[in-house]
């Protein structure tokens, strides 16, 4: 009888593939995102696959949850600016619980191990919580980027009225000329 660690290792490819498939099925054109393996021609598919491939062994090995951050950022930074609600953005992280349980149950050799998944599923819970944090950080960063751009002076492109008043605002110090907006 194999133990859970070995079972997860053996089924890793199958689980991750189904996890990637599920995650990419949240896009309208999922077939292209799944098919194209060049990460530069297909950044959503490429980053999703890479992130989940990195994340799965960390979950399986009960790694420190701090280690989840890098792979989670890779996927959440993308999903945070796409047309998802917060729950839609995060949900695929959760999905690995169900996929793993199903894959183990379908194999005679591993079906008895589904009762031992508590620690693994707890790790997934932690990853989901971390994903929410990262989602929020990304949203906040997005708004910061927007504020920074407005402050950079580009808004004057459309909001300016009187260029002479603008000149007054520019100030006498050369180095202050843009920051002052």
């Amino acid at each position, binding site marked *: 009888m194999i133990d859970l660690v070995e079972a997860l290792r053996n089924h890793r490819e199958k689980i991750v593939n189904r996890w990637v498939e599920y995650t990419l099925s949240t896009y309208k054109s999922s077939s292209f995102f799944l098919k194209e393996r*060049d990460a*530069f021609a297909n950044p959503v598919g490429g980053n999703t696959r890479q992130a989940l491939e990195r994340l799965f062994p960390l979950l399986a090995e009960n790694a420190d949850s701090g280690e989840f951050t890098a792979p989670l950022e890779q996927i959440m*930074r993308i999903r945070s600016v796409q047309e998802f*609600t917060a729950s839609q953005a995060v949900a695929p992280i959760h999905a690995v619980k169900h996929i793993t349980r199903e894959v183990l149950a379908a194999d005679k050799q591993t079906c008895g191990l589904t009762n031992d998944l508590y620690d693994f599923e707890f790790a997934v819970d932690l990853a989901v919580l971390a994903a929410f944090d990262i989602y929020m950080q990304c949203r906040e*960063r997005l708004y910061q980027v927007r504020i*920074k751009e407005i402050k950079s*002076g*580009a808004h004057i492109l459309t909001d300016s009225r009187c260029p002479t008043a603008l000149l007054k605002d*520019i100030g006498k110090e050369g180095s202050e000329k843009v920051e002052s907006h």
Partner: protein
Amino acid sequence: MAVPKLEQLSKSVVQGPSLATGAIPTRDWMDIPVVFKEGNYAYPAKKDKVEYLNSQKGLHFPNARVWSPEDDDWKLPENWKEIILSGLKERLEKFRSLKIFMDCCVRCGACADKCHFFLGTGDPKNMPVLRAELLRSVYRNDFTLAGKIMGKMAGAREMTVGVLKEWFMYSYQCTECRRCSVFCPYGIDTAEVTMMLRELLHLVGIGINWILEPASNSNRTGNHMGLQPHTFKDNVDFLADDVENLTGIKINHTFNRKGAEVLFITPSADVFAEPGLYTAMGYLLMFEAIGLDYTWSTYASEGGNFGLFTNNETMKKLNAKMYAEAKRLGVKYIIGGECGHMWRVLHQYMDTMNGPADFLEVPVSPITGTVFNNAASTKMIHISEFTADLIKHGKLKLDKSRNSHVKATYHDSCNPARAMGLMDEPRFILDHVVDWVEMPENTIREQTFCCGSGTGLNTDEIMELRMRSGLPRANAVKYVQEKKGVNMLSCVCAIDRATLTSLMNYWNPDVRVCGVSELVGNALVIDGETRGDLEDGLRTML
């Protein structure tokens, strides 16, 4: 094998109006309406701007009104459909290319996955073939026999308000970057389809403010910012002062000087907004270093041309000031600064629209004697061509170590790369001024990915959309950042300098953005300089 809990998970999160439906669409694309919500559309043009433009000679922007994409009623003129269809008819007769593009697509799909909007959103209507189909379906319905007889079976559909709304959504989710055209076996220029969609929409008073206000400013004062001559002059003077403070080199620039050999025109963002300012400082330094006999113009104070994003009449009118000013000042030829779409207009349309410029001479570098025969017709050369030629002839003294704080990569701005073939000159310059590396092959040169915010989409209310569409570019930058230690994204486009800055701030916060001429300015060694150790080049705060 279905996982019951997983299905439940999908169901629980797919509610609410979202494009991400969590499933393969079961309806035909024609039957899926567009949904406008805050963040997925750019704000409509202000009524007074549209009225102003419509009042100007040679321009046609009728049906000005207050409207909102989120409202059901867009307050279209009563005969809107007639206006659209006769507008389409007129354009099919006027532009042979449009007629061909409407007829010859075989829907092979080569373009489908090449669009950065599609790659970032996964929305099928952002596949260039389908975006064009939005117009083609109406064309088939009203202008082809097959469509008239077979209707939907032949891919035809009637022009409705829903179709119009779809046009607005997707013609403003295209940056006319033309990457798709590179892959089209028939050479269909999908950007021109977008241009036609936007032209038709303007006929019924549908346009966005971020484009029409700069266009109206340009018509009024010559530049996007609406800067009057004294303000424009003062800004350039400020930059010259900064250069002098940093390097000890006094800049002897002039404005509107008759009899100068060269007229220099650049995007106004270069003299106004960060980080373009540093690029402009680079221009000033280099022209000073070689003693070029040139002048700035406070009238032709804008290289950019937002007319390109509205209609051909506006593009022509805004472009006309370049030749008009060159003629008035009596210069021999024009040098253009680092700009993207400006070069598309100059290279592809200017000669036809406002030429021939027979009062100008074929550009000859006064320093090297090189004749720029490539510009024999337009009489206007790109600053990178000019600079690369100087370097090639050993006319610039450059110290690469002055850019040792920079590890650069180079973003081919869509228009210079794909619309004028300017790919090697900036690279040649970079070789001589900075340590730099290329991004992956399928993201550079003619395959370059757009910044995601071109064609007037660089407005902050659609920041999310811009981040999505800029993902393919940012993804390639991230790669060279992680693998090669890149900390600077250089480019030759003013819109890029602004938009890539925001893009990097979201995706790769440790990468800054600069113009190639800024790096030249950093590296230039000039007789008489008193430049100390500028640890951040021309950006160093003293």
